């Protein structure tokens, strides 16, 4: 039972404040993903949990015990680094056993653990090799092996897949997910890739500019984003945003923008009362557009001229311009769409997200 709690944690480098008042609880056996654009403080947060970075303010608790003054080795934490950080002068087996040798485990136990982990990761035949004789994927596996043999209570991953090529990354991601099922441990994983976050995380913490924007399960983040940042960050291709105005009280509940007018679900009337007649930001996911056959009239329909068309096969990603806003539309049809054509699309009222333009919070 290991619970990690961050309480009002702050990090400053000289006068520059990187993280301010971070509160976070990571429950036992949870795979937590910290995700956000580069420079959002996710890696710094991880390094503070690891003990590689001092905490400027606040406290980190592991199992109720304050640890912010403890050395990394006293925290029972293992870490996988972005650049692998394998010891170049040691072979794979010695790389993996380094921590155990430092802790004076006996030889038989070290050998047993290395074999077990090597089998699990499929790197048994690599044990005698030096890091320079390994491919990128193999190095990555060894780096994970080095963390796993320690059998620590918590594993930290600092963008472990970002140095791999696209194909290998997908493969390693699947392997990580598989490994996750076998090892029930606390895992904290930092990435800037929202797909990695969505596929691996039990819970995702979206960060931006040193603050937590939202924490929740992948489904919560996708379906009920708390603000414009999360809505735009989660989901690929990312959500389209339009500046619009909410129709005033005497009209029907609708948003009117440059080149479109869309009706909203009636049950939203209550919470939107204060915003009637005022500017509003609306968000629509690329997949929320449905193609309507020409000539057929439909509610909430928009005509979208095709500017760029990326035909993927099972679907097409179409760039269009509605009013003066660039829009991405994911069309789930295997028929290619030519540039210069225009498509008529409709949006279900429930699929429209509304944001306060000032606070960027969802309405």
């Amino acid at each position, binding site marked *: 039972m290991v619970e990690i709690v961050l309480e009002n944690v702050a990090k400053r480098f000289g006068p520059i404040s990187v993280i301010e008042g971070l509160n976070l609880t990571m429950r036992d056996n949870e795979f937590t993903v910290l995700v956000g654009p580069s420079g959002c403080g996710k890696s710094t947060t991880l390094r503070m949990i*690891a003990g*590689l970075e001092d905490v400027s303010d606040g406290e980190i608790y592991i199992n109720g015990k304050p640890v912010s003054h403890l050395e990394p*080795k006293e925290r029972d934490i293992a870490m996988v*680094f972005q*650049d692998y*950080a394998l*010891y170049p002068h040691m072979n794979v087996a010695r790389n993996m056993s380094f*921590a155990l040798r430092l802790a004076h485990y006996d030889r038989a136990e070290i050998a047993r653990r290395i074999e077990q982990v090597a089998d699990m990761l499929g790197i048994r035949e690599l044990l005698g090799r030096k890091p320079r004789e390994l491919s990128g994927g193999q190095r990555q596996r060894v780096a994970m092996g080095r963390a796993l043999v320690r059998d620590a209570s918590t594993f930290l991953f600092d963008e472990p897949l970002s140095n791999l090529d696209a194909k290998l990354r997908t493969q390693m991601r699947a392997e990580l997910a598989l490994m996750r099922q076998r090892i029930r441990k606390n895992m904290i994983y930092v990435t800037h890739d929202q797909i990695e976050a969505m596929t691996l995380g039990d819970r995702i913490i979206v960060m931006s500019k040193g603050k937590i924007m939202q924490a929740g399960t992948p489904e919560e983040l996708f379906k009920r984003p708390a603000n414009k940042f999360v809505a735009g960050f989660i989901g690929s291709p990312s959500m389209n945003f339009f500046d619009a105005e909410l129709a005033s009280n005497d009209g029907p509940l609708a948003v009117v923008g440059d080149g479109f007018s869309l009706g909203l679900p009636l049950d939203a009337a209550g919470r939107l009362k204060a915003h009637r007649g005022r500017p509003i930001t609306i968000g629509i996911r690329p997949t929320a557009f449905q193609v309507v056959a020409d000539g057929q009239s439909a509610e909430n329909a928009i005509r979208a001229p095709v500017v760029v068309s990326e035909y993927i096969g099972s679907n097409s990603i179409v760039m269009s311009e509605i009013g003066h806003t660039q829009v991405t539309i994911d069309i789930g049809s295997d028929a290619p769409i030519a540039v210069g054509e225009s498509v008529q699309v409709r949006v279900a009222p429930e699929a429209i997200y509304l944001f306060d333009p000032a606070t960027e919070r969802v309405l």
Partner: protein
Amino acid sequence: MAKRRKNSDLGLIGYYALLIALSLVCLGPILLMLTTSLQLKTQIFDDKAHFLFMPTVSNYVAVFEQEHLARYLTNSLMVGLISTAVTLVVGCMAAYALVRFRFMGRDTVSVATLLLRMVPPAVLVVPVFMIWTYDFDLSNTLSGVILVYIALNLPFVVWILQSFIEQVPNQLEEAARMDGANPLQTFFLVVLPVIRPGLAAAAIFTFRIAWNEFILALVLTNRFTRTMPVMVSLYITEHNIEWGQIMAVGTLIAIPPLIFTFIASKQIITGLTAGAVKG
């Protein structure tokens, strides 16, 4: 096309001419030393140059019959090896501190190490002799010579090792920290093995200087603590200059640094950090 070919041929000829000239400059004195050491006095002092001659080992025999040879050789080896070892140990720690730790005056120290290296040893002779003799009571001892060589070599070793340590990725040390290594273990088990090529280069350099140094050794030693280079000067007497034996000792002196360099250069494997971290 043909013209281009001709140009590159000319370039190649020039290139090799330069190489031959340079190797003559390097090898010429060694060749001269070697041939002279194998000649009799009459041949050495003859007006005509002898390119073809019957070699003799009489000079070497005379050198080996010198009763103190073993002692001077031992002195030289001790001075060379001990000063190299101490310089490396102190130098790598100093370099590590200069690279990794932030403290006041760090940059000044870093630059000062190099400035010290620019002082020619001859300038040090008088002050070192005075201090060693009257303050430290170290004159005529091997410790005195060793100490001066350490002081002489340390700045360069610190400077050369700094650049090697800078190339050790920080993540490697952080990984060691996560694995439970304390700072000393991180340094000795992770950093030092990674900078082994730098240590080897520094060792070659230090040993060569300590082995070959003449003027400070001449001033700081007596007939018991002489080193090999000082021994050479004994063949210049008021009656005679024994060129043959001087060259024979010179040839013998050149051998240990050669052996040392071959052993140490085995450690210089480029790209030792390859595979540690990406890019």
